[in-house]
């Protein structure tokens, strides 16, 4: 079996699905890596819910403006064609269906597309919901990047989420370190798997029924 994908490789794969001209919001964690791997020749407008349409690369240390941050509080630059707005408008874009794709991190995704990604239930850290619930109900396409299993080996693709939900029936596609899985009306449908993995092995680390596309492709990002 090929090694599981790195976080950057998962991000790279998710980036392949972003169309030229798409408006895309990147969640914290793995999703923010996606902008580093945008396909050459496609102009993708990255939306940040704190009020930027057209986030550019992270600022060079010397030139950073502390009053220009993305939603992850990174000091960023603006891309050509960017627009600065307020949060109410940024969320109008999200809730109103103007953002084509949101890429979110996840703890669990259910076969019905339910997403759990917002609460670690830590005993020492408070709760944080942020904009994920708005993004999950509002973006035209909701795609999740996450490891296929937890560190303890528990499946994250499940029949029903047992962690606090972010949204019901929201997720369209999941990119993991093992596979690309769509959420369809009849449940999970595997589109791509890493080389050497077979259906049985993927089912063994998944806690919900899996269907497989007729043309399951090999998921083979470059070394990143």
């Amino acid at each position, binding site marked *: 079996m090929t090694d599981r994908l790195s976080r950057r490789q998962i991000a790279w794969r998710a980036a392949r699905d972003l169309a030229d001209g798409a408006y895309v919001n990147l969640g914290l964690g793995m999703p923010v890596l996606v902008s580093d791997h945008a396909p050459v020749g496609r102009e993708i407008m990255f939306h940040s819910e*704190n009020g930027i349409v057209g986030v550019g690369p992270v600022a060079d240390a010397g030139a950073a403006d502390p009053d220009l*941050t993305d939603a992850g*509080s990174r000091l960023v630059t603006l891309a050509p064609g960017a627009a*600065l707005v*307020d949060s*109410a408008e940024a969320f109008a874009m999200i809730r109103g269906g103007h953002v084509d794709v949101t890429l979110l991190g996840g703890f669990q995704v259910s076969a019905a597309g339910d997403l759990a990604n917002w609460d670690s239930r830590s005993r020492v850290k408070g709760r944080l919901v942020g904009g994920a619930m708005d993004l999950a109900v509002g973006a035209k396409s909701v795609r999740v990047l996450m490891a296929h299993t937890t560190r303890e080996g528990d499946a994250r693709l499940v029949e029903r989420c047992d962690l*606090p939900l972010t949204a*019901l029936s929201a997720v369209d596609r999941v990119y993991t370190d093992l596979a690309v899985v769509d959420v369809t009306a009849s449940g999970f449908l595997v589109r791509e798997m890493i080389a050497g993995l077979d259906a049985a092995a993927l089912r063994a680390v998944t806690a919900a029924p899996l269907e497989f596309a007729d043309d399951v492709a090999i998921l083979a990002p470059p070394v990143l």
Partner: protein
Amino acid sequence: MIDKRVSGVAAALAGLETGARVMVNGFGGAGLPIALVKGLGAGGAGGLTIIANTLRMIESHAPELFTERRVTGAIASAARSRGEGTAIFEQQIFDGALACELVPQGSFVERIRAGGAGIPAFYTPTGVGTELAEGRELREFDGRPCVLETAIRADFALLRADRADRWGNVACAGSQLNFAHAMASAATVTVVEVHEISAEALPPHGIDIPGIFVQRIVEIPREDSA
């Protein structure tokens, strides 16, 4: 003559007393009114309700608000500190000393905008099916269940922006604006710390917060706002 300039943080916060509901702008450090937050900490008001996207930066700049238990309520989309360990506000929420209502960020800002726009309540699909909507009123529109959200208003809104004029018109730089426009509209007294008060009126086009939403402007040198 209209002149909303005040001299210094004390004048800017005059009338902010115990029991006040206070909105604080900021996303990351952008637009965070650091001098005003420090002034709030240095003042004596307690029993405060803080309405801010996150409490983290407020504790960083005015820890006495929490060590002295002067914040008793909060509305936020994030009640978590960064890094390891537990912030004071987190511990107080765990202990029940600080009642924090957690709100999805889009509903948070839309509720504040509604407060400023005279809209008492609205429906949104955000949060349906989650524990944040438990026990709340649901209603379907076009077959989609939505939750009823009500407006949020405050006594004070504290903001930071780049520049202003004597009419209270405000212009932001970078991503300072974030929650500031909504908050300015939803507070009885809106105070903006700016790096520069323009002697002339700001150009009418491109103003981020019209002066009608602003009661006080205070000039704070850039080095005191960090």
